């Protein structure tokens, strides 16, 4: 009985679902608060993302005449469901190991691409020209950052696999077990190029300022989200909060999963996510301006891609 309840509970309440949503909203709230403090103002209350969601739930959803209604309203649902599944796949070291029935690292990689695809579909289904611009920019960004991500994950998997005497290991629990036995990849010079590439990847995936080109408010008026209002827009906000938890959690699992068991492990995981969010997202977003799409594309094909290829090469040799 308990065994059969474990996976649904994981999806709906503890690491996934409600817990992850609360954690994601707190991360967003902290991000906005620290950004305000860095600009020397008071800033919104910590619960501001929750207020926004409650507000959006009470507004009306309007569908443009020229939009394809089923796709327009279905896209945010698909996005939220994909991220809710993905959250249940991210392990919390010492606390939660995902059931292999759900899938592992490769499934997680595929699920991580869904939000970007959903935004593209939403933008093109809305029938707005800004949505179409957002679509093409989102696609260019995705082409730019997915390559480095796959190579980073491959080099982590290769390092773990070779260390265990096999070839590659696409199992998050093995990657974590290996690092707990041999030290975190964060302190392993061989893995530093991969770490740097990942540090460039996750702001782009979360769509924050130097890389928020598809949703740039001042030029394409939030692009794919332009035509959304009310609860449908709220679903996109939920999707992006969950995505923050997934991407940062993946980063912790790949590079620094050392943690004690039980409650302390959970607290340490939360602290790690907050640190990653504040250092990698907030500081970046208040200190840089937005890149143009060609600059961002060139940047990703130059540095993170080169670093991740380099890391794959030195992992193979080492």
């Amino acid at each position, binding site marked *: 009985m308990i065994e059969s309840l474990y996976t649904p509970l994981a999806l709906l309440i503890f690491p996934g679902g409600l817990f992850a949503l609360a954690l994601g909203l707190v991360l967003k709230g902290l991000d*906005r608060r620290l950004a*305000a403090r860095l*600009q*020397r*103002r*008071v*800033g*919104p*209350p910590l619960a*501001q993302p*929750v*207020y*926004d969601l*409650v*507000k959006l*739930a*009470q*507004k*009306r*959803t*309007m569908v443009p005449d020229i939009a394809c209604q089923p796709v327009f309203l279905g896209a945010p649902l698909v996005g939220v469901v994909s991220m809710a599944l993905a959250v249940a796949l991210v392990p919390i070291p010492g606390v939660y190991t995902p059931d292999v029935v759900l899938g592992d690292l490769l499934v997680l990689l595929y699920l991580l691409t869904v939000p970007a695809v959903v935004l593209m579909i939403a933008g093109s289904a809305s029938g707005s020209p800004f949505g179409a611009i957002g679509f093409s920019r989102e696609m260019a960004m995705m082409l730019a950052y997915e390559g480095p991500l796959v190579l980073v994950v491959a080099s982590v998997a290769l390092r773990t696999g070779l260390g265990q005497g096999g070839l590659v290991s696409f199992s998050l629990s093995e990657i974590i077990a290996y690092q707990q036995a041999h030290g975190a990849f964060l302190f392993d010079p061989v893995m530093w190029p991969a770490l740097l590439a990942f540090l460039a990847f996750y702001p782009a995936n979360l769509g924050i300022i130097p890389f928020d080109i598809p949703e740039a*408010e*001042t030029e394409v*008026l*939030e692009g794919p*989200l*332009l*035509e*959304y*209002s*009310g609860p449908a*827009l709220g679903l996109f906000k939920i999707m992006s909060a969950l995505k923050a938890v997934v991407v940062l959690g993946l980063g912790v699992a790949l590079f620094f999963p050392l943690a004690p068991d039980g409650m302390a492990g959970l607290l340490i995981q939360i602290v790690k996510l907050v640190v990653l969010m504040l250092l990698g997202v907030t500081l970046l977003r208040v200190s840089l301006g937005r890149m143009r799409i060609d600059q961002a594309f060139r940047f990703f094909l130059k540095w993170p891609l080169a670093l991740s290829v380099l890391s794959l090469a030195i992992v193979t040799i080492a």
Partner: protein
Amino acid sequence: MNLKQMISAQARRMAARSPWIYRINAGSCNGCDVECATTALIPRYDVERLGCQYCGSPRHADIVLVTGPLTARVKESVLRVYAEVPDPKVTVAVGVCPISGGIFRDGYAVLAPLSKYIPVDVNVPGCAPRPQAIIEGIAQAIEIWRGRL
């Protein structure tokens, strides 16, 4: 008061802390827009404390700030953009122009007052109004908006 009413009252209270602002320029001379965009809503006065957020799309908006005397040229566009703001919404007319036309009031292309075409909830007179006045107008609009949720 039963549970359902309590929940909906609480939800209204929370929602009133997240008013998103959208600006419509109805043929303004840009003076009020400068006051809105670069003076009243910058970090120095920090309307984000009230939960306000500037949004690029009328579909995300709750409070609409309208500047300018509503010229004949932009009338159709203004009405169309205004209709795209989902209910419940509140309109704030910023500057003296939407009230009377201001210095443009006798112009052949000026259709002021704005309230002939759009229901205006709060007037913030001034040419251009001070940032404190605009923030006061937004605060009053939030009060009105709370009643409409």
